[in-house]
């Protein structure tokens, strides 16, 4: 237990990988083997969730910035070390990940029928990579986990995906790689700068935060470095106009892949902004604040409009992600504690509500093998429980007060208004068009007469599907009614983040 206590983060991060490797040994050819594999994988993700609750319990909001820290030498000569630790910003993304993984595994039981061993291996491998990225305190270690993510996700889309899976996987891969390359260059530059300023190489975030980089204008070191990181993170978010990989990746990915992609992978972008791009380059952030807020507001509206005209439900949900993540960017760049808190909360919300939407879409896809909106209509009559779940998730997505979505959107807009009422009003149009595309889609799928014969015999939710959706629905209302549960262990970290990212106003920091 003592070892676990001092290595809680390492345990959480690598437990899924270890579990996955052992899972490879399960003979799926034997009778009951496949069920055993599924059970094993589910148990693993549940265990990781349980361990991550210990992190929640140990984390003290009033304590040091990074807690449960661990470190081990890796490439000490280059200042690169294995450093883990968590603050409030890492904490909730870790919990979001560990919370959603059992759901993703459970949702795959019927959907995945080929090469299951590899599938569950990759899913758990992915969990390790994601968790690692969220708790890495060394920028190079962060980069390794960030790149590591690509591998399992690439295969999940490329092997278990839909008709155009290869194209989609390739596009996903290309986009991310383009972003990563510049980021890697920037990382080396930063470590080198540390050597110049302090005499040693270092890749630790806490060391890099102390760097003094010129940041007066649009071509200063801060600006260029900021843009290098921002490109990588904006692609992941994804921020308009770098979003076009998302619809393809989402539509082609298997359900669990879409859930993880939307719920967690996109959050890597927001997390990267918060952990690296903002605190390291506050003056550049001040310079680029307005352009990015404009892109965020445009993304909200653009995503909503394009979502509105999609004939494919999954594509509609994908574009809705562009819209929802536009709010996140708008709020982050507003740089006050209200908007940033809202943005962070919106990232969690988006994970829950969009994740749940993909689960729901997956459920009707498994029944009908199509995602065309026009192939449905009137499903409420045959699938009433599904209809209730779908309605609740829809309301969360359109940010009805009482659901989680409202808390995020309200805080983002309230905070952004203090910076730019005009852009807030533009983004606010998303409040209207969000309702347009979601309710219109809901009507065409769930209401009206049952016009297609094929839909008449559709079965309502199975017990397993209820188990998949129940935690999502609990989270939707729980986070809508008791957001302070999250804020209590978040807000000191947000305040630190805002203070560190707005020191641009103080010229002593820069030149």
């Amino acid at each position, binding site marked *: 237990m003592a070892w676990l206590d001092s290595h809680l983060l390492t345990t959480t991060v690598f437990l899924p990988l270890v579990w996955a490797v052992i899972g490879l040994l399960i003979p799926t050819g034997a009778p009951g083997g496949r069920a055993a594999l599924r059970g094993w994988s589910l148990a693993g993700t549940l265990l990781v969730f349980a361990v991550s609750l210990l992190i929640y319990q140990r984390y003290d909001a009033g304590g040091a910035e990074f807690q449960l820290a661990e470190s*081990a030498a*890796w490439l000490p000569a280059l200042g690169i070390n*294995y450093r883990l630790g968590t603050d409030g910003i890492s904490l909730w993304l870790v919990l979001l990940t560990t919370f959603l993984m059992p759901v993703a595994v459970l949702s795959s039981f019927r959907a995945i029928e080929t090469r299951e061993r590899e599938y569950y291996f990759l899913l758990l491998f992915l969990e390790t990579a994601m968790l690692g990225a969220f708790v890495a305190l060394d920028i190079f270690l962060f980069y390794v986990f960030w*790149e*590591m993510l690509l*591998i399992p996700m*690439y*295969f999940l889309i490329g092997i278990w995906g839909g008709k155009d899976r*290869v194209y989609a*996987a*390739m*596009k996903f891969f*290309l*986009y991310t*790689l*383009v972003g990563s390359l510049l980021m890697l260059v920037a990382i080396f530059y930063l470590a080198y700068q540390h050597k110049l300023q302090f005499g040693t190489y270092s890749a630790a975030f806490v060391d890099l935060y102390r760097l003094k980089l010129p940041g007066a204008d649009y071509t200063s070191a801060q600006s260029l470095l900021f843009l290098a990181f921002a490109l990588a993170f904006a692609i992941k978010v994804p921020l308009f106009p770098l979003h*076009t990989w998302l619809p393809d990746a989402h539509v082609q990915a298997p359900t669990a892949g879409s859930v993880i992609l939307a719920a967690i992978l996109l959050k890597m972008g927001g997390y990267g902004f918060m952990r690296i791009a903002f605190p390291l380059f506050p003056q550049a952030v001040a310079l680029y604040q307005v352009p990015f807020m404009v892109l965020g507001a445009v993304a909200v509206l*653009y995503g909503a409009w*394009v979502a*509105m*005209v*999609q004939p494919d439900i999954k594509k509609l949900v994908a574009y809705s992600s562009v819209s929802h993540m536009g709010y996140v960017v708008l709020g982050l760049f507003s740089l006050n*504690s*209200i908007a940033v*808190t809202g943005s962070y909360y919106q990232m969690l919300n988006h994970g829950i509500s969009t994740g749940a939407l993909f689960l729901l879409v997956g459920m009707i896809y498994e029944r009908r093998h199509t995602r065309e909106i026009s192939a449905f209509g009137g499903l*409420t*009559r*045959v699938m*009433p429980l599904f209809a209730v779940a779908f309605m609740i998730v829809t*309301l969360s997505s359109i940010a*009805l*007060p*009482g659901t989680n979505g*409202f808390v995020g959107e*309200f*805080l983002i*807009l*309230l905070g952004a*208004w*203090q910076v730019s*009422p005009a852009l*807030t*009003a533009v983004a*606010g*149009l998303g409040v*209207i068009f969000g*309702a347009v595309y979601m*309710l*219109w889609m809901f009507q065409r799928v769930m*209401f*009206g*007469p*049952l016009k297609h014969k094929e839909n008449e015999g559709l079965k*309502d939710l199975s017990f397993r599907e209820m188990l998949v959706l129940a935690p999502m629905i609990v989270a939707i209302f729980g986070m809508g*009614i*008791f957001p*302070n549960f999250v*804020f209590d262990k978040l*807000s000191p970290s947000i*305040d630190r983040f805002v203070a560190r990212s707005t020191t641009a106003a103080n010229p002593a920091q820069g030149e």
Partner: protein
Amino acid sequence: MIALIPLLPLLGFLINGLWYAFFQAAPGRSKASAGLTGGIATLAILGSFVVSVLLFLQLQELPAQSRVLDQVLFPWISFGGFKLDLAFRLDPLASLFTLVVTGVGALIHLYSIGYMGHDATPGKFFAYLNLFCFAMLMLVLGASLPILFLGWEGVGLCSYLLIGYWYTDDEKASAGKKAFIVNRVGDLGFLLGMFLIFSVFGTLDFAVLQSAVTQGGQAALPAGVTEAAVTAICLLLFVGCMGKSAQIPLYVWLPDAMAGPTPVSALIHAATMVTSGIYMVARLNALFSLSPTAMAVVAVVGGVTAFFAATIAITQRDIKKVLAYSTVSQLGYMFLACGVGAYATGVFHVITHAFFKALMFLGAGSVIHGMHEEQDIMKMGGLRGKMPVTFFTFAMGWLAISGIPPFSGFFSKDEVLWLAFSSQHGSFLLWGLGALTAVMTAFYMTRLFSLTFLGKPRFDERKLGAAHGHDEGHGHAPAGVHESPWTMTAPLQVLALLSLVGGFIGIPHLSWIEHWLEPVIPAHHASAEVAPHMEWVLMALSVVGAVIGITVALRLYANLDRAKELAVRWAGLHRVLFNKWYVDELYDALFVRPIHGLSQVLWKRLDVAVIDRLVLGFGKASLWSGQAVRVIQTGSIQLYALVLLIGIVVSVGYLIYGMA
């Protein structure tokens, strides 16, 4: 204790909702009866009515200036520099609204037991109805703007769910969606107004806000706040009111909302939800009073809406549509009152209107029920003898809305008109608009009354009930017109009584309601320039106007051929009015189609054709060239696997090397 008022209906919703979803909803499962599910729901709302009465009495015991009860449930959204409690506040204004919402609500729940008796899924219906009451009571009792907004959007949701209650009919589902979306337009205004309040006053709490903008009991601009800022706040919030309370230009959803079951039209789309906008303006009266510009906008929009909706009501043939436009028109009166500074009078008209309009909607429901789903008044007539209770009670509503003394509508409407004339913010023009509308109201309500109940039947009784079905599952056993069961007629009788005597809470110069509201809404001062005797002159004029409207309509519609002749002679005007001034078509051409078209273009021309190609091309070019590009395009997954595997090996190798 206050929390019980909204929580009891929430409990009712949870019982009926969960019971329905898990044990009744599946196809083939038997459904619980309307008596049982409706009984639960009615008890829930009746319980909160009792609590509301007790708390009202408790308030009354207190000295006038300290009539406030607070209850904080828990901190809702609190962190660092932001604090928002889930808190309720019961003051004289909120107390009146809780009484109306729970009282009229309970009557309509009871009525629904009869009305929905043959419905296929009463459990679902009553769950929604309770949920609505919960949200409406949150709206009324919220101690801050965000809590009010929580209720505000909540009632919008229930409205959406109940308008589209018979969801298999695409048209009804669309009407629900339209209501939600048009309301969202208003809600955006509300949100932005809230944000501006927060940045100007640093608070969203009503009490703090109230004390910031009042000095010595009168509204006063605090230091550092400009009138322009207050005007902007009020106008943004008023956009929200235009949506929720169906004012020009956002009224278009309310007539369509009649697709919902009739008790829903009575409760949500006449008596309670649509008056939320008036409630908000009254709640923030100190703020509105600081901006003469905003008040003028409120008054003019209210007055014009009242007139405009009345013109449409004159030509409609659907009994519920006439009542819907009449509701839009009456809501306009309420805003007219608020806009001239007579907030208490606006609230007074909310209450009397809740009585007589709920009564008439329920009466219309009784007629539709008795006529086997017929809603066209041209196909009715002569129901006086066949549905005596409905006829008699409906007549009370008709006289009330027409402004005949001593019915309730007379007192409240007359007070609105008088203040539109005499207030310092009033004018002869505003009065004229209101008075003209009053005559038209008397006319079209008489037309409705006459075509429905008087004259000879214009339908074949033997054919009724043979072929109906658009309200699926809403079947009836006996053929022929019949009076409704007691669960339906009892609420009619109670509401008829209230429509008759309800006005006495606001007798001119002795007004109990104005006095009661004084802690929230300071006493109104009439302009000194208006001669006092004018009040009686104008009162007489409005009664004469009402009598003229009634008489003309009675004579005209006693002989339907003459009325039809008139419609032919004025064919152009009639067509424009009958087609509701083509406003829906206008919005379709101005907003719906262009945005839809633009979105298509953005998707196909920008997203796919430009951005995608540009970014992909750039990515490919920068990563590989020549041979490599060809390899990529073969899409050989094994190759990528190899590349990635090498990547893993290198990473892991690094790791091990580093550790060692």
